């Protein structure tokens, strides 16, 4: 694998390779370049910790023609697909290299056991939402109770915007979360539940279930569950599995000129 990367860099197939390197015991993202090919021997491939796809998007925004190789797992391939669909990255310029994903009992929706959330405490289970709950488990509660449980979670929010900032598929230049007509500014917690629901709505057809948001959340809000729910709705209504294929998202009508007539949504 490392030889392959060296080969890519040497032959100019890529300008840079995004992976990980250990620094004083900490795995940190690292950009390997062609000027120092030996450096690639220090590449570590075990787990995916950081949003390399987002870093790639940022690089491309600065340097549109750059060719990037990167280490990926299943979810990062889904992230790349979403970024291709939304024209943030050009598949011609990206060379993914599959890393050693690790097995996980969350395998069905993810592939990285290191990112499994810690156990939810008793109090959280009693009054909030268990981080490990499936959609079905979360929907056992009657609507009113479910709402109260989510409101408990949302009230912990410290408005760090970490869920958005870490998200590999959040790339908008102007974010609805910062639109003061939509969400009031300047106080904690942010307006609940609107802040989290605005983000959830925007995750429909976008979220690739990588779990980085939940891992970045200082308040342990089960964001992954929330976005999984909106995506389950998308799958049900449009038969669209986000990031699984390279076909257009049902939400790509957004951005077209607005008509006052109801527009039938194209059949999948």
């Amino acid at each position, binding site marked *: 694998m490392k030889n392959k990367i060296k080969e890519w860099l040497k032959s100019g197939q890529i300008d840079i390779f995004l992976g990980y390197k250990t620094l004083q015991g*900490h795995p940190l993202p690292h950009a390997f370049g062609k000027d120092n090919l030996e450096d690639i021997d220090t590449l570590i491939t075990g787990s995916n910790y950081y949003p390399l796809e987002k870093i790639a998007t940022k690089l491309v925004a600065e340097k549109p023609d750059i060719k990037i190789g990167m280490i990926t797992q299943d979810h990062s391939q889904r992230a790349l697909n979403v970024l291709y669909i939304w024209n943030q990255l050009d598949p011609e310029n990206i060379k993914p290299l599959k890393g050693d994903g690790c097995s996980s009992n969350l395998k069905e929706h993810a592939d990285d056991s290191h990112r499994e959330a810690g156990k939810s405490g008793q109090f959280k289970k009693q009054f909030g939402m268990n981080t490990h709950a499936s959609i079905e488990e979360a929907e056992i509660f009657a609507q009113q109770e479910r709402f109260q449980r989510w409101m408990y979670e949302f009230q912990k929010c410290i408005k760090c915007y970490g869920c958005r900032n870490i998200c590999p598929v959040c790339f908008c230049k102007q974010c609805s979360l910062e639109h003061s007509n939509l969400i009031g500014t300047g106080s904690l917690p942010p307006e609940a539940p609107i802040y989290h629901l605005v983000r959830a709505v925007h995750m429909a057809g976008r979220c690739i279930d990588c779990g980085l948001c939940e891992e970045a959340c200082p308040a342990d809000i089960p964001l992954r569950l929330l976005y999984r729910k909106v995506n389950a709705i998308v799958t049900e209504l449009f038969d669209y599995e986000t990031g699984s294929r390279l076909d257009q998202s049902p939400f790509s009508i957004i951005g077209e000129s607005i008509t006052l007539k109801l527009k039938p949504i194209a059949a999948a």
Partner: protein
Amino acid sequence: MECKFVPSVCSYCGTGCGVIFQVLDGKLVGTLPMKTHPVNEGKLCIKGWNLHEYVNSFLRLKYPLVKTFGRFIKVRWDEALQITADRFKEIIETHGPDSVGVLVSAKITNEENYLAQKFTRAVIGTNNVDHCARL
């Protein structure tokens, strides 16, 4: 092209969260939380996430300034340091070292705080050194 990731510590409060600065061609373009840091374990607050922004501000001071007839003029470092040294020495000679005070900072590094109090005590010759943490 230069693209690197540099570990550091957030400077926005006393918690001390681990961050990673993302650098592109000598410019800070982003801040990420360090996932494996013992203090913040991959999370940050709104200030930490935007730590790189103040560094890049166009309002940053770029040159030494000396006030002449009520207006700041840009000067070279050697001029600024000479003016400062001369004025300090003059005041110390006329009024004694205790007529000078130094305020160190809760925002600069340990090494710099150490040097600042060493400067106050060994160079100016007074213990009039304090910081603004009371404020």
